[in-house]
């Protein structure tokens, strides 16, 4: 029962911390969650999950003082950080109630009260004085005793600190604080007990209101940032950035309209944009063979000069063959390639399910939306993990759904709409499942031979794979290469070609571990009865086409001396990098300047 309560508290804590300090990257800079059992003087005892501190020394002289620090220093990306300490007992009668609450840097002597030494700061209960790295205090606030809740707030923007007593702010106590301070308490009286609240419970003081004020301040500062006399230039620059972004991603119609209405030249011929658009569409719909062919036609020397790129494209083609989407295997499966084109043929619009419904029109009408949505994708910090979640959670609950909505038919874009309207975050994963399902739905009843055994007899080297083999293939609904035997044979043959291409590349250009891994991962797909739910199944995900598409696109642009990344994405990326750099160098204002806030 207490375990349950503990879990509940843990959940509360995580939730509250995320809400209070959304800009903190806890993988880099974890937040303090409790007192450290390692970083304390021996007279300090900890209990209740290291949140309760009690004094167990003699308490006769200042030499008996003892402190404890929190597990982690306060990350600058908090912007404003706050914790509270409740005085459970002021200690035994007959002693002066020395008790200090504050901050100290790592390495400050723990046989002391906070505030007495360099890089140590404290507010003491016996006299209400503040101690700023000095043995003598300054009159600061009221005294405090049993039952009082004392809060300590560190402002990492202006490097000040103020305390609260029972929810009332006492005003600035310290200025010019150094970075990386730890929450600290010190006791010196037998029987003294205090409890910390690092976010486990709601705070007595309304810290969120204080944060609101600083968020407003920082945002006003950004809004008022002077552009100076370059205002005209400023607008032109933004228009240029938008235009180049549209061109980069081959939104030709939109780019054309935009360029016309803002009176600027497009730095690439329309035909060239359209070519790139065509290739991108092919890649994104999984028709790799055609994509490679088209590239070779339109940009004859490109792939010749970039054998690694060609190899990557081919590996992808192999994966698409397994998937049953590549044109070569699709022909063998006897289905019209056109109708299988479930991919809208553009970078995915993650947060805009509505636009997927009419993807072809999107480029003409929804300029703004397309851009912001796409930026979202570029910025999405959890890109990889989102994607992984999507795959791992594909346990078939959408299977039934898709059966209902289109039994035994080819997947159509409309399905994506149905799917996409479900919500924002889970969108990515959900749609991935759907597409995987579609293909299996389409063929699941036509043939059901377990291909697994067959594949190993074809001599593809799978020795290196040591994943779990799934023998029970009967339950699998998806079929290799769309289930066509001819397609499977073509795939196997293609695999052999790929293998020899890899060997050739190694001889010509030396070892390339990235290429090796790529090939190994792709071949590993064949080791599972149901590659889609296997540990390497993520490769089959259509979202994996995007990096391939963008690499190819960048390579084409580079041969035309155009930037391989659009300046807009570069600027946005730079701003995001800048914020994380600020977090690392201790500029707290990064907490209230999320790039996302400015992209909506």
């Amino acid at each position, binding site marked *: 029962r207490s375990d349950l309560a503990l879990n509940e508290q843990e959940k509360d804590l995580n939730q509250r911390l995320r809400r209070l300090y959304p800009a903190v990257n806890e993988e880099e800079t974890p937040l303090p969650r409790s007192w450290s059992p390692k970083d304390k003087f021996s007279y300090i005892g900890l209990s209740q999950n290291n949140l309760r501190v009690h004094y167990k020394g003699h308490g006769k002289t200042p030499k008996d003082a003892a402190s404890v620090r929190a597990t982690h220093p306060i990350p600058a990306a908090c912007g404003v950080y706050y914790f509270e300490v409740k005085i459970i007992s002021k200690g035994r009668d007959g002693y002066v109630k020395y008790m200090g609450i504050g901050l100290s840097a790592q390495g400050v002597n723990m046989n002391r009260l906070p505030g007495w030494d360099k890089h140590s700061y404290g507010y003491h209960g016996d006299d209400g004085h503040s101690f700023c790295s000095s043995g003598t205090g300054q009159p600061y606030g009221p005294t405090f005793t049993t039952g009082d809740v004392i809060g300590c707030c560190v402002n990492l923007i202006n490097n000040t600190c103020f305390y609260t007593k029972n929810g009332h702010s006492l005003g600035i106590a310290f200025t010019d604080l150094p970075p990386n301070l730890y929450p600290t308490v010190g006791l010196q009286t037998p029987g003294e007990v205090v409890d910390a609240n690092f976010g486990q419970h709601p705070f007595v003081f309304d810290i969120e209101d204080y944060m609101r*004020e600083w968020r407003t301040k920082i945002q006003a500062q950004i809004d008022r940032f002077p552009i100076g006399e370059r205002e005209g230039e400023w607008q032109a620059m933004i228009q240029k950035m938008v235009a180049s972004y549209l061109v980069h991603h081959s939104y030709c119609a939109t780019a054309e309209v935009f360029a016309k209405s803002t009176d600027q030249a497009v730095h690439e011929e329309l035909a060239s944009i359209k070519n790139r658009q065509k290739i991108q569409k092919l890649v994104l719909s999984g028709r790799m063979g055609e994509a490679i062919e088209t590239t070779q036609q339109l940009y004859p020397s490109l792939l010749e000069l970039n054998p690694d790129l060609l190899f990557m494209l081919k590996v992808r083609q192999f994966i698409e063959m397994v998937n049953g989407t590549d044109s070569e295997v699709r022909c063998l499966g006897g289905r019209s390639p056109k109708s299988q084109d479930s991919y809208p043929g553009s970078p995915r619009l993650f947060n805009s399910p509505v636009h997927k419904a009419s993807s072809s029109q999107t480029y003409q009408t929804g300029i703004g939306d397309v851009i912001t949505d796409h930026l979202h994708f570029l910025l999405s910090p959890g890109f990889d993990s989102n994607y992984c979640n999507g795959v791992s959670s594909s346990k078939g609950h959408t299977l039934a759904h898709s059966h209902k909505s289109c039994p035994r038919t080819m997947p159509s874009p409309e399905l994506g709409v149905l799917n996409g309207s479900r919500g924002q975050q889970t969108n990515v994963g959900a749609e991935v499942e759907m597409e995987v399902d579609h293909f299996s739905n389409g063929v699941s009843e036509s043939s059901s031979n377990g291909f697994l055994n067959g594949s190993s007899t074809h001599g593809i080297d799978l020795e290196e794979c040591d994943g779990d083999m799934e023998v029970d293939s009967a339950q699998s609904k998806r079929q290799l290469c769309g289930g066509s035997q001819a397609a499977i044979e073509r795939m196997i043959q293609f695999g052999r070609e790929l293998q020899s291409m890899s060997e050739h590349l190694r001889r010509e250009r030396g070892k390339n571990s990235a290429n090796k891994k790529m090939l190994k991962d792709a071949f590993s797909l064949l080791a599972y009865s149901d590659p889609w739910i296997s540990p390497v199944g993520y490769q089959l995900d259509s979202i994996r086409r995007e990096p391939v598409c963008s690499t190819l696109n960048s390579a084409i642009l580079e041969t035309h001396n155009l930037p391989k990344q659009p300046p807009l994405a570069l600027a946005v990326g730079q701003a995001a990098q800048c914020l994380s750099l600020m977090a690392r160098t201790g500029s707290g204002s990064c907490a209230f300047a999320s790039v996302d806030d400015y992209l909506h």
Partner: protein
Amino acid sequence: MRNDGRPIPTLEVSAAQQQIHLHTFFILQEVTATSRHYVDRLFDPDPQNVLQGVIDMKNAVIGNNKQKANLIVLGAVPRLLYLLQQSSSSLELRTECAVVLGSLAMGTENNIKSLVDCHIIPALLQGLLCSDLIFIEACLRCLRTVFISPVTPVQLLYTDPTVIPHLMSLLSRSRHTKEYITQIFAHCCKTPEHQTVLFNHSAIQNIAPLLISPSDKVRMQALKCFSVLAYENTQVSMTLVNVLVDGEQLSQVFVRMMQRDKPIEMQLTAAKCLTYMCRAGAIRTDDNCIILKTLPCLVRMCSKERLLEERVEGAETLAYLMEPDVELQRIASFTDHLVSMLADYFKYPSSVSAITDIKRLDHDLKHAHELRQAAFKLYASLGSNDEDIRKKITETENMMDRIVSGLSESSIKVRLAAVRCLHSLSRSVQQLRTSFHDHAVWKPLMKLLQNAPDEVLVMASSTLCNLLLEFSPSKEPILDSGVIELLCSLTQSDSPALRVNGIWALMNMAFQADQKVKVEIVRALGTEQLFRLLSDPDTNVLMKTLGLLRNLLSTRPHIDQIMSSHGKQIMQAVTLILEGEHSIEVKEQTLCILANIADGNTAKELIMTNDDMLQKIKYYMGHSNVKLQLAATFCISNLIWNEEDGSQERQDKLKDMGFVDILHKLTQASDPNLCDRAKTAMQQYLA
């Protein structure tokens, strides 16, 4: 000058001929001439031309104060009003007229005066009866501009009793009607009568939904309405607490408006609303929305980051909020260094502003008095109950010096606030003994008392009362400065508060005073005035006068001396009071005086020879109130005290009158004090 060959109008020719050398005047003439053209067009027989003329006039006056003044001088206003009121005018024309008038009102205060003199207000109010929304909005916009000007008498809104209900009915018509009407209400609600009129016409129900309007302006004006409606108005405040806006309590809506990311004006006004509701008793002072929200919000308004006007309002509102509540005073005293934050209020104009920026200096100077008086008020409120807070205040940098100089400032508001602050601090025994004496605050205080309005006098004399307390080291120098005459003159004031303070100060002065001082008090006051005060309609005055008498009649030689010269009148006054309809406290005080008289050597006889008085004492010994019994018994006890001459005779006489029986009975009394007192008296007989 024109040289296009066309005939030159005579007006311009004559102007040019006469003023050709006076360049500036010439230009004025030219402007007037073009303005004249605009006015002339208003009289064109073709209505279409009139409309175009009004539209051109509208474009000509925007942002041009000179043009506005010219048009007013040339009589455009009555014509515009005529056109606006004519039912034969097209709606478009009437609307454009209202727009131009609104534009003219945007100019100087003189413009507004001229417009009001032309009876623009009734004309526009009449216009509101029209059904066209655009026209109504134009009228309201102009009315708003006129009413928010300080030169417009707000009473004009209330002359016609149908106006307020009509405005209420228009309120929700559009975003603009909401904004303009609430703004008019917010500016024109200045007295309790105005509050009542608006309240009776359902102002609260009509305006409350506007607090969640999507328009910032509407929300802000609605909020202002509530602050002026609730100010010192219990009825409004009590109603407000029960109002729900979209299912939420109004106080919570106000709390949200105090969030730190809201505009400062909104935070401050919301805090005012809650303050007024709290002071009216509609919200408890220990409610979280007061203690954790309103109070900290007002303290923030006092911070250096805020504008000077906001700091003044913040401090005044905070002072008002916590005046009656010591817990709020304690919390405020340690919130955000408020006490030292206020010290900054005295630093305007700062030495920096004088050198660097003349505009800033002007701004600082304008607000300097307001800042100082607000700070004094807040200090006064902070220190009115708690000794520790008073100590903290007096220890603030140069605090006593600031009060001393504040007492002699030219601005009455500052003087009053300074003396209020001094009064609040003078409740501290410790401060009276130390800082008050060190800074000789009595000197400017005495000066202030010589010639000041009643308001200031009340505070100053009240402070003086405390400075004259027996343990105050300032008492001596004040006595030497001729204060007695001054206090005696206060007792003759028409204001009961001043009479109380005058006599109270004299009472404090007489406490354990030298014979010389006592004689001086009696001489200066005169027995006639003393007895007039004993029949004062104000009980407080009567009580303090009795207190003075009691203090005068202490220690035997003093008693005998005063009674020998004024005995007859005093005994008369005592008789009158004991026979009259007075409170227990008054009678008790009177009996105590009698007990003091009974303690004198010769004065005793004035009682012993007055059988009527003895009967009265006897009556009070048997009274149902223990306090009166105790005082009367004390009196008898003094009369029969053994060690004095003639005690035997007095004992015998009183025994004959039956006092011993009464005393005997009182030894059985349930009240231990009375019982002891009676026993002690009985012992005098046994000895």
